[in-house]
């Protein structure tokens, strides 16, 4: 572990070690009397590829919302890149891919290029416009996800898998250090899902991207991620896939209830 020192050489008790990208400390969250998250301590370190799993209503999406600053926890604190979320400003360091299904109106008149450009807006700031090099960066990102032939096509007319890749391009165009994905494969056909995981693997290995992915697809995911976190109101497991597989039945019984059977499927 790296201890963070300020210039004076004094250890700052409030400062976070630089290698934790996301750190949730004692997060509690509820809607009225309904407790959704209970004392969550959760850390994503640099270079991690974390798969976050849990049954429906386990609080996965809520936890993501809290990490992204879209919801405020009742108690506890979130640190992003070592900074408390309230003072965190470098949102361009985080790429986000939401569930395809509810993320946009498919009659929207926008091309792939226009949608991917959006990924740079946060970095650009108010009133400034895309420069030539930004535009090149957009084309590069589109190429990276293999959509070059569709650059000027209307996004609503692409297949679910292609749309999802366009959203990945939007998330990586600003060259973030962290990519957060919320059930990205929902509504995407099986063949595209395979390609999708390959793309994520490339981003993780070649571009050293830290990834946090919420998913239902436990079977598929265990072959790709470096860490698995299992959530149902609290974190039931957080560790490498090998350890997860050893204790799988106990963890799942605990988090999902006893009637959960894991179906392994290889594509």
């Amino acid at each position: 572990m790296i201890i963070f020192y300020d210039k004076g050489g004094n250890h700052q008790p409030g400062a976070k070690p630089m290698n934790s990208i996301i750190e949730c400390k004692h997060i509690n969250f509820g809607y009225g009397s309904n407790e959704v998250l209970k004392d969550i301590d959760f850390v994503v370190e640099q270079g991690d590829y974390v798969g976050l799993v849990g049954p429906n209503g386990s609080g996965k999406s809520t936890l993501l919302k809290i990490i992204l600053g879209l919801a405020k926890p009742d108690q506890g604190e979130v640190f992003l890149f070592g900074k408390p979320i309230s003072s965190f400003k470098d949102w361009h360091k985080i790429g986000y891919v939401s569930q395809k299904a509810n993320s946009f109106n498919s009659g929207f008149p926008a091309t792939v290029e226009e949608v991917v450009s959006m990924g740079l807006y946060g970095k650009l700031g108010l009133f400034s416009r895309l420069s030539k090099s930004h535009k090149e960066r957009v084309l590069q990102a589109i190429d990276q996800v293999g959509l070059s032939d569709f650059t000027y096509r209307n996004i609503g007319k692409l297949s679910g898998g292609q749309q999802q890749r366009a959203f990945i391009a939007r998330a990586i165009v600003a060259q973030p250090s962290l990519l957060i994905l919320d059930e990205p494969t929902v509504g995407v056909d099986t063949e595209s899902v395979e390609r999708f995981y390959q793309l994520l693997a490339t981003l993780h290995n070649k571009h050293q991207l830290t990834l946090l992915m919420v998913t239902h697809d436990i079977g598929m995911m265990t072959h790709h991620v470096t860490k698995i976190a299992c959530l149902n109101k609290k974190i039931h497991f957080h560790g490498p896939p090998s350890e997860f597989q050893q204790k799988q039945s106990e963890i799942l019984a605990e988090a999902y209830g006893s009637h959960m059977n894991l179906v392994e499927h290889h594509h």
Partner: protein
Amino acid sequence: MLELIFRYEFMQNALLAGIIIGVICPAIGVFLVVRRLSLMADALSHITLSGIAAGLLLQKNVPLLQGINPMYVGMIFSVAGSLLVEQLRKAYRFYQELAIPIILSAGIGLGVVLISIANGFNVDLFSYLFGSVIAVNRTDLWTIIVVGMIVLIATILLYKELFALSFDEEYARISGIKRKWVNFTFTILVALTIAISMRIVGILLVSALITLPVAAALQLSNSFKQTIWLSICFAELSVLGGLTLAFYLNWASGGTIVLFSVLLLVIVLIVKKRV
């Protein structure tokens, strides 16, 4: 034959004002339509009516305010109405469209009562309701130019924020766009657009110029920028064609402009179906 139009000062005023609103109405309209807020224009135009009525009333009864242009009062009401819509949408998070009929009926109710107090059911009011080319005087024209420029420049400056928010509000928030601030500014821009457009097309027809050209453009375009440009082209065609036709046939200008844009929309729909 056409040069006849330019001989009259009122036609020069009307044409110039028409060209300006022909740009800003569809430019603002594109964002309203893709955000499924087309009816917002209707709600705000009706609240503008009560502002106009209040203006007429003040003009008549407060000697100090005799010189006041009812259009300014309309503008103030429109801006206030737009802020109310935002508040109402918050109060009815699950019935957001309710805000629109509430504001719309409040606007028309208040408007009618104010007009009756002012004893103002006359030609002047008629021109506000349905637009009139003769009604655009030099002061109106200057107001339209200045406010129109402000709306246009603000829209260009906020283009990428508005585009991102329209496409996917959650993503826009995460990417650090100041959603509240941009939405607030946009609502004011809509209110201003409506207030200055009503001189030409009238309160009851403003929303047509905001939505119809966009509806036609949506049928043809692939990209967002293309949608904006096409909408502006359709709106300009409607405004210039409508004003010219109205001039020669002695028709109501607002109605003619709107019918022209309906015609364009129908043509686009037919052509699209054939292809």
